[in-house]
């Protein structure tokens, strides 16, 4: 994986939101609003339950008034419009009382193994106010206004996996519905979306009385949940090579299966052609302020028009492979990645089983019997690109990643200008591999790695990585993350695309806004027909 390609990623039908919705439909999940104790402004406590076949998961939500000057998406925020937990089961009054004392404090609170996630969200004031005022006045909101935002609230963090005392992943790793990557987090966000729509309708009713109208179902579907994502995802991707490998391997395997089809069945071609109409309109509606991204989108529109034409004319043997090869040869990285996503789209029967393998619970131990000579060969085979760099040049390690004392906010510093380089996170993989390679030279080539690493413990982290990447090649990022030219946004987009996000809206090289579940069916609409037919959302056409 190279950063530039990672930064052009698009969601696919293997993305985590997609798999969650498919499961909900196939298993007939039931949804229930168990509690909605909120005042006229929507402030209070709510509980929304998702009943899976064997278990129930409940979103516990606390909403409060927030002064505008307190509203920030940064990790260093201290207060939020809404805070949440996903509770394992149905919470009792004691649980809710305990969470009421802790959840609004977020990182400063403490949680138990009954809580599977901890999250918070802030309103998009312009969308929220517009929707409430419109519904209260008896009319539907202006879809064009909503299209500029795409959501009523945006999450600014969704924590799982044992953070702040919440349940460890191990607790739920054997359950079918939570075994897949980030399913707990995706479920949390999906239920938050439902809550936000209930909330605006409730506040509109409170203000408008008999004049108020409910939100049009098409507009509800068009409302996603926003998300602001910063640097926290970069350490995650680097520190979980086995997991990342499982994601990419699934996607590449799916693509290989489709490209290997000798003929295109009319059903699949027809389905993709129908989808292309929505894709075209989606791309037309995807506009951002970031000039680099906007230019990429504009080129993408041209490339997808070309793709649509070729798709309509496709014939002969291995047609899907031909389409992919055209993209690979002629399109931008954005275009290539979107084509890969589109080719998978009509082939659910062929590829959806691959989603079941997109997780890992394996340990990451060193293989101590490997010899120094074998390790050297591995480094040369896999990390030649890293060995070519001169790390004595300042540009080669200009940046460093660190946790700030400010609520552990992950930040990216400049080594020569800022203090803290001696406390950097171990994300300088390329540099550290080169140092390992240097130490291997001169060692007894037949010595075991057990002996080498006992004498050179400073290389242990990267030695483990080299051994792992030999087995899990898609787990490595084949670029240096401390280089002068690093663009963290590429890492964020890669992970967010695997989540299933759309409408990437980069605000700088360090962070992006996205929309999640935009276009997805509401809980009372999920069925086999809707669960997988909601991507590439477009503005609904509402009769005046």
């Amino acid at each position, binding site marked *: 994986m190279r950063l530039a390609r990672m930064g052009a990623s698009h969601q696919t039908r293997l993305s985590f939101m997609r798999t969650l919705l498919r499961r909900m439909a196939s298993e007939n999940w039931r949804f229930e609003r168990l509690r909605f104790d909120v005042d006229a402004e929507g402030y209070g406590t709510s509980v929304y339950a998702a009943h899976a076949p064997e278990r129930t998961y409940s979103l516990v939500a606390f909403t409060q008034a927030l002064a505008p000057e307190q509203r920030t998406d940064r990790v260093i925020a201290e207060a939020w419009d809404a805070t949440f937990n996903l509770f394992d089961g149905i919470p009792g009054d004691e649980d809710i009382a305990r969470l009421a004392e802790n959840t609004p404090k977020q990182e400063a609170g*403490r949680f138990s193994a009954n809580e599977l996630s901890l999250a918070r969200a802030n309103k998009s*004031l312009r969308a929220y106010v517009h929707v409430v005022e419109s519904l209260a006045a008896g009319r539907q909101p202006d879809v064009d206004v909503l299209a500029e*935002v795409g959501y009523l609230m945006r999450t600014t963090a969704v924590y799982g996996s044992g953070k702040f005392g919440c349940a460890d992943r191990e607790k739920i790793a054997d359950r079918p519905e939570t075994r897949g990557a980030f399913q707990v987090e995706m479920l949390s966000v999906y239920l938050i979306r439902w809550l936000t729509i209930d909330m605006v309708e409730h506040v509109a009713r409170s203000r408008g009385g008999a004049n108020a109208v409910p939100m049009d179902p098409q507009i509800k579907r068009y409302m996603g949940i926003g998300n*602001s994502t910063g640097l926290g995802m970069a350490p995650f991707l680097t520190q979980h090579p086995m997991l990342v490998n499982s994601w990419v391997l699934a996607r590449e395997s799916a693509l290989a299966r489709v490209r290997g089809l000798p003929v295109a069945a009319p059903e699949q071609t027809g389905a993709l052609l129908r989808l292309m109409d929505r894709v075209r309109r989606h791309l037309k509606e995807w506009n951002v302020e970031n000039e680099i991204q906007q230019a990429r989108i504009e080129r993408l529109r041209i490339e997808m028009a070309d793709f649509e034409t070729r798709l309509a004319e496709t014939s002969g043997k291995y047609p899907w492979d031909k389409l992919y090869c055209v993209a690979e040869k002629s399109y931008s990285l954005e275009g290539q990645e979107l084509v890969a996503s589109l080719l998978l789209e009509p082939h659910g029967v062929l590829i959806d089983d691959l989603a079941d393998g997109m997780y890992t619970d394996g340990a990451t131990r060193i293989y*101590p019997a490997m010899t120094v000579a074998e390790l050297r060969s591995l480094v040369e085979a896999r990390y030649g690109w890293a060995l070519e760099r001169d790390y004595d040049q300042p540009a080669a390690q200009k940046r460093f990643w660190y946790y700030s004392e400010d609520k552990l906010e992950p930040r990216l510093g400049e080594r020569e200008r800022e203090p803290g380089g001696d*406390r950097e996170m171990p994300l300088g993989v390329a540099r550290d591999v080169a140092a390992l390679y240097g130490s291997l030279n001169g060692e007894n080539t037949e010595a075991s790695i057990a002996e080498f690493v006992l004498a050179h413990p400073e290389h242990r982290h990267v030695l483990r990585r080299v051994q792992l990447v030999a087995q899990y090649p898609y787990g490595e990022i084949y670029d240096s993350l401390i280089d002068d030219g690093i663009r963290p946004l590429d890492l964020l987009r890669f992970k967010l695309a695997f989540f299933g996000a759309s409408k990437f809206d980069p605000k700088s090289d360090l962070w992006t806004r996205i929309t999640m579940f935009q276009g997805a069916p509401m809980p009372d609409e999920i069925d086999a027909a809707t669960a997988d037919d909601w991507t590439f959302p477009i503005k609904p056409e509402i009769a005046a």
Partner: protein
Amino acid sequence: MSRTHTTVSLNEIRFYVTRAAVGVGVPFGVAEDFATAVRWSVCFGIDPAIVALSCLTALDLDPSLGRIKLLGSREWHTIRGEGGTSVVFAGISMTEIWQGAGLPQNRLTVLSIDYPLLALAYAAFGDGRPVKIQWPGVHAVLDGAGGIVIQAVDLEALQTRGSVDVMLTAPDSGLANSGDLHITSSDIDAANHRLLCNGVALDAPAWAGIVELFRRCLVPSNEQSRLAGAGAGLVDTD
């Protein structure tokens, strides 16, 4: 006076202990594996905060405890530090040398190691070559496929802070039933399940000590770095 307790997750133990170890100068890769050992040691009833803090404080005061060497000849192999031997380093290497170094005589000794239970915990949760691990009052057999049987004269012997000499040999016919304390894989699995459902209650002052060491890894914030952090401005009313 009873000490106060706090409850944390197993993942928090891993996260904080890893970085606390880095905070006292332990290389990141070693710190990760030490934290893994600490995480699994909880299944043996030990307080991970007290143990981890003790190990790391000792290293902080005397870094030479972590400078370990493998000494040996055709007849014997020994791991030892300078003066004493820190389990932070030796606990991991003990297993790896046993698994990977091809010792001709099937015998390895680790001299004067603190908290040998951590070394056992690290060895116990990996696959590989079967081994019998012993220190005074404790015998453990690991079958190399996740199976483990431990016999100890009492809990104190199992949880001793040391220092003691630990010996690794090839398992013979198993363990004689000698000892009041008998622990098997199923006991450990049950303990792990309880921890996943309830969290880990540990000594609050010791945990505060771990967090204090952890904070050494954090970079102080200033106005410039706050403003340069990822995300919108410090106020966002979009």
